[in-house]
């Protein structure tokens, strides 16, 4: 793997280089938070030093919140023939890249989700290192340093960025940047020290005292614990946790027919297992009619179920559920309940 050096003063030129490969998307301020937005102006192209916990995670670029997945008429159906633009996701952090690695496995193992795959093929991942805030806990989910899943990754060594190149597409971008003089293949001699300091800085930035140790087994042991009912009593069923979770994948499809025509479209949109109708089946049976059952399902999925199939839990420690749930049901508070379940 080739490594190059990048200096912050070349940020504007970097935007110029990336723009030649496609649309540049990056976290932009939205209210008191952030949102991944298309960057049109180099002034908005920033190496954020703070945590940019976007309201919606990276998945919105791969499977948009609501889109037509099929068009049909009374005789045939076909995929909408819209042009999918190449997008460069700049400023994604380790947790986000880890989430995309999980989504890649989920959507392309056994059965390939064509809607996902066609957008994934057109997505270039440009990661940037970060320093944790009080809600981050990717150190506890082992997603604080990624070794795969990016095309390029910028690690902040204070005086300069060390740039990892993960794919040949990433290499194309770096080579163009080298031609424009913004990347330097000569790495300073003290780089290993600097890199060790960078890892230490990252490690020491975490202050979220969430305790996930043993949570996978505790989920199994707590299947009938009383606290699920308590959480079910206070859950608003708003579904925000599933919308903001970077590894939640549930969706629904509805067919919409055009008025006075024989044409229509099949709409695919994000759904949530926290909604009652999600588990409604034919004959009006609902196998998860109680809110507590649905909450338990979600936390089982995050902390346990994914391991059997893919070898790791599907929580990446981004902290979105912690900052989003209005009634404080999140991975942290559930982990606390798991540990103290008999003491309630």
């Amino acid at each position, binding site marked *: 793997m080739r490594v190059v050096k990048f200096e912050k003063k070349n940020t504007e030129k970097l935007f110029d280089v990336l723009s030649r490969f496609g649309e540049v998307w990056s976290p932009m301020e*939205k*209210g*008191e*938070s952030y*949102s991944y937005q298309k960057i049109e102006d180099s002034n908005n192209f920033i190496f954020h030093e703070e945590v940019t916990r976007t*309201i*919606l995670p990276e998945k*919105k670029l791969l499977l948009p*919140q*609501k889109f037509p997945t099929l068009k049909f008429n009374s005789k045939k159906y076909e995929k909408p023939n819209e042009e999918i633009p190449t997008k460069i996701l700049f400023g994604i952090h380790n947790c986000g890249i880890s989430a995309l690695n999980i989504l890649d496995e989920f959507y392309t193992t056994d059965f390939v989700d064509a809607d996902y795959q066609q957008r994934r093929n057109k997505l270039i991942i440009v990661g940037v290192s970060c320093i944790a805030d009080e809600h981050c806990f990717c150190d506890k989910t082992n997603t604080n340093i990624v070794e795969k899943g990016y095309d390029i990754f910028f690690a902040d060594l204070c005086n300069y960025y060390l740039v990892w190149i993960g794919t040949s597409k990433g290499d194309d971008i770096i080579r163009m940047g080298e031609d424009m003089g913004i990347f330097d293949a000569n790495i300073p001699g003290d780089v290993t020290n600097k890199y060790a300091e960078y890892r230490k800085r990252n490690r020491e930035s975490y202050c979220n005292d969430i305790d996930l140790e043993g949570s996978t087994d505790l989920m199994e042991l707590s299947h009938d614990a009383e606290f699920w009912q308590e959480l079910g*009593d*206070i*859950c*608003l*069923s*708003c*579904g*925000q946790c599933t*919308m*903001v979770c970077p590894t939640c994948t549930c969706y*629904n499809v*509805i067919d*919409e*027919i*055009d*008025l*006075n*025509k024989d044409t229509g479209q099949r709409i695919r*949109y*994000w*759904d*949530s297992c926290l*909604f*009652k*109708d999600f588990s*409604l089946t034919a004959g009006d049976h609902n196998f998860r009619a109680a*809110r507590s059952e649905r909450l338990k399902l979600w936390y089982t999925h995050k902390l346990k179920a994914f391991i059997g199939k893919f070898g790791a839990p599907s929580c990446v420690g981004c902290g979105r559920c912690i*900052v*989003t749930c*209005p*009634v404080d049901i999140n991975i942290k508070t559930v982990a606390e309940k798991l540990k103290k379940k008999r003491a309630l």
Partner: protein
Amino acid sequence: MSNKPTLGIFGFTGCAGCQLALLNCEDQLIDLFEAADIKVFYEAMSNNDDGAEVDIALVEGSINTDKQKEELFHIRKKAKTLVAFGSCASYGCVQAMAYGDGKWEERFRKVYGDVEFAVGKAFEAQPIHKFVKVDATIPGCSPATHQMLTAITKLLNGNLPVYTNAPVCLECKLHENECLLNKGILCLGPLTQGGCTAPCISHNTPCVGCWGIIEEANHSAEIELLIENGYKIEDIIRKFRIFGGSKISEQYTKLWRL
């Protein structure tokens, strides 16, 4: 002789804004007029054929007098499919904000005295399902263009509209809004049936619940959260009641004990 399905659009007590919302779909009106043979459209037509049999009747407004009740029975008899069109018809809406408090007669006398009404004997605003079988609902005060036209298209094709039982929060989050409850603002999103596409919250204005209460609304959890944020119980209940209509007193009688 036309093969088009016949449609009647009727109105009772309310602001007539649901009919207006339909009339306001200017880009789709020609398609609607071509797809359906409209026999009655109170707000848009003269020479309404009130006695006509229709495949689909959209009924707007709540029922407030015995005369309206008779008219509603008549519409039901003549319609194959009867649809509650908008919040007033579905659950009473704002004119039913004090629904079931037992003080309607008193209020009525205070406002009108002993006047005899030409429109029939009056009573507390009632949703239409109190008197007749309702086959489908188009929710909203007033209904949203896309949801309304999708529902009407389904009806014209002989199907009933289907809605996801999801709160306003779904569409609010799909628009990537910050949660107003987390900012300490009294927002009824989690308690309210979605389908409106969350325009209010997307413009930084809290949800007032005008699509009606969602089946699974967790009022007590929201009350607890709002009290923690410094709201008074009376103010919270008043807010719930504005668009709560008959649903709130039917489904959540336990609330009034608070």
